[in-house]
């Protein structure tokens, strides 16, 4: 029996078998790498931005697609450890954003109201639902103005001081 194996492994047939195995391994490896590279490429072009504002005693969450790859929102992760689906969020009733969980294309917004602070959202590509990305939610800032409809002292104090005649009191004094 051993001479049969030796004959196969050392003869031309053995050589052909070796070539077939080698080609299959290389092709399989390349295919796996191609699948992985496609996955990463799709993931790299998911460009969602999620922002939260405190609003009417709850949290107003808005998500925009700043890229060109459409995506759907899968989960909203809350600070308390829970997770919501987009359909479980409240409807703020605004016309500029979608509240349904349809896919978001370039520059489209989704918004909803949640009663716990959202900290991250998971979005999945509309082209391949297996490709997902978790992004943090951006928080808010409050800017105050010394009087209604006037520029903020904090934001513009340097440029305004430079433009004002020196004898006028600066807005900083009124604070």
């Amino acid at each position: 029996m051993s001479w049969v194996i030796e004959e196969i492994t050392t003869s031309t047939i053995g050589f052909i078998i070796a070539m077939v195995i080698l080609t299959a391994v290389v092709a399989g490896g390349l295919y796996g790498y191609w699948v992985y590279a496609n996955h990463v490429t799709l993931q790299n072009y998911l460009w969602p931005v999620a922002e939260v504002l405190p609003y009417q005693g709850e949290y107003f969450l808005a998500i925009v697609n700043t890229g060109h790859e459409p995506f759907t929102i899968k989960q909203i992760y809350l600070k308390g450890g829970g997770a919501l689906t987009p359909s479980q969020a409240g409807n703020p009733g605004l016309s500029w954003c979608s509240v349904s969980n349809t896919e978001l294309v370039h520059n489209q917004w989704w918004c909803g109201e949640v009663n716990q602070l959202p900290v991250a959202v998971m979005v999945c590509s509309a082209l391949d639902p297996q490709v997902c990305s978790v992004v943090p939610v951006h928080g808010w800032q409050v800017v105050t103005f010394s009087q209604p409809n006037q520029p903020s002292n904090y934001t513009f104090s340097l440029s305004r001081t430079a433009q004002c005649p020196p004898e006028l009191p600066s807005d900083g004094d009124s604070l």
Partner: protein
Amino acid sequence: MSPKARARNRGISAVFTAAIMALAIILIIAAIAVSWPMIKSTFDKNYWSGSMGTYNLKFTNSTYAYAQNGVGGQVGTNPTPIGYCIAYGNNSTNATYSCPSNTEP
């Protein structure tokens, strides 16, 4: 081993080397071709992350603000998008906004 058998083995060895080299070249070219879109997408993502990291709002007054790319908008009493930021105010002394450059809440 007979001289004939030795000659046959040398032939197989030469073909084997040629086949391995051909496979290696195909592998390298295919790996570059497959990797290139992924590498480009990584650069694009880094560029996007960098631009979002500095994206902010500038308020001209409590009811109007400009986003990073020059898009301006009214700040209403309901949340409104201005560029990629969202903002609302009380039409008087304060405004609340969130932008892509803000940190996590």
